[in-house]
């Protein structure tokens, strides 16, 4: 396998916690501009995989490359984020004592050092961008509400908004539609497809309708490694996938 041309390249990655192998010799390649859906049973290691990519967890072994050239295991979270990998967490975490608007403002792409931040003035461009995002995540009327006071689903949306604001090259989206209504789920699928036109995306979801909606290649993880890969129809026809994941 060649790394060049890939946006994300994992090869032979393993990690264990107190002897439990959460990721087991996992290999996964994502091409530039690709969107990939990842499914798999609870505990398969999907979130852990994202932890590894974003620098939160260091793998015990294996290669993790971004953009074909950057060894992500040598960088920390902030570096990785700056390189253009954004993430939405499974459990939504937003800045609770900031307003929705400020949450977005802090996430907006731009320099990340202290002094510029100290003398920063909001530009018209940024204001517009924030308004746009607020429109997308439908929190326009809640822009001055504190993060802490949002409902669960609203936090999910805000997280997505923060991810959009960062405008990363690669988006890792962990269970974006958990807690959303069916209509919102469809909306989110549309949004992600839209984003995927210009970005690379990895989506983790258990909602098969949603995954189907996305209509992209699907990888099913199980016990830390790839169980099956292909179109959704292909994967869901796999007996092992049915056995461990979809159920009968």
């Amino acid at each position, binding site marked *: 396998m060649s790394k060049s041309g890939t946006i994300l390249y994992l090869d032979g990655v393993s990690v264990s916690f107190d002897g439990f192998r959460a990721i087991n010799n996992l290999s996964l390649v994502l091409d530039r501009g690709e969107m990939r859906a990842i499914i798999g*049973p*609870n*505990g398969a290691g999907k979130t852990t995989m994202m932890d590894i990519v974003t620098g939160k967890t260091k793998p015990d072994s294996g290669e993790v490359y971004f953009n074909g050239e950057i060894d992500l295991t040598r960088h920390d979270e902030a570096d990785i984020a700056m390189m253009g990998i954004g993430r939405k967490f499974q459990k939504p975490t937003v800045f609770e004592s900031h307003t929705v608007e400020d949450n977005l403002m802090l996430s907006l792409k731009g320099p990340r050092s202290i002094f510029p931040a100290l003398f920063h003035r909001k530009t018209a461009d940024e204001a517009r961008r924030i308004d746009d995002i607020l429109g997308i995540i439908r929190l326009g009327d809640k822009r001055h509400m504190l993060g802490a006071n949002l*409902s669960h689903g*609203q936090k999910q949306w805000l997280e997505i908004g923060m991810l959009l604001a960062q405008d990363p090259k690669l988006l890792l989206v962990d269970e974006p539609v*958990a*807690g959303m209504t069916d209509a919102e789920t469809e909306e989110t699928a549309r949004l992600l497809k839209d984003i995927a036109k210009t970005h690379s995306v990895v989506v983790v979801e258990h909602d098969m309708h949603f995954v189907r909606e996305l209509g992209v290649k699907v990888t099913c993880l199980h016990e830390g490694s790839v169980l099956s890969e292909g179109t959704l129809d292909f994967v869901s026809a796999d007996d092992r996938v049915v056995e461990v994941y979809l159920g009968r």
Partner: protein
Amino acid sequence: MLEVSNATLHYGAAQALRGVTLNADAGKITCVLGRNGVGKTSLMRSIVGHHRLTSGTVAFEGKALDRSAAYDRARSGISFVPQGREVFPLLSVKENLETGFAPLKRADRNIPEHVFELFPVLKQMLGRRGGDLSGGQQQQLAIGRALVMRPKLLVLDEPTEGIQPSIIKDIGRAIRYLRDSAGIAILLVEQYLDFCRELADEVNIMDRGMIVHTGPAEDLDKPEVRRFLTV
């Protein structure tokens, strides 16, 4: 079994519930649906005693609960699976389950076998800390933990969130089983419409802090009901 009447709730000056009236009967599955932020969680938390209603009443088995604390409500047979799981992160899975022993008589202090039948992964991971589990595993633990208490009323706030499809099916079966065999009342908040439609004996639709529709599960296919669930 559970009667909520005319419940209102405020967060500071913001109003989250506006005169909600709702019943959940023994041997029935009562579903609450609604868009994000309409007040479903607020309602559930008011029922289990995490929030104190500004006005209105909650009665369980004919007794008003408004003054009683969350632990007394739990002791009287209400158990709760919260949105966001809230497992005890530093307690092992086994200990998490055992926290459900508190309201039980000494003789009943065991973990019912059906918990492990339903969620086999919990049996494998008895010694692991709750917080180390994956999201879906935690959700399973949260449901299992609620079952340990042998509730008369089970309140589930989006229990399928983050759970793999096969287990969602199992949960559906389990809920039905609990309703049918034990005859307990089940109050279920769901976004997952299909799941709801399959299970519910009665659905309540919420919007902006109010119950805007109550009826049988089939109503979910009516456009005037669907309206409340679209964006």
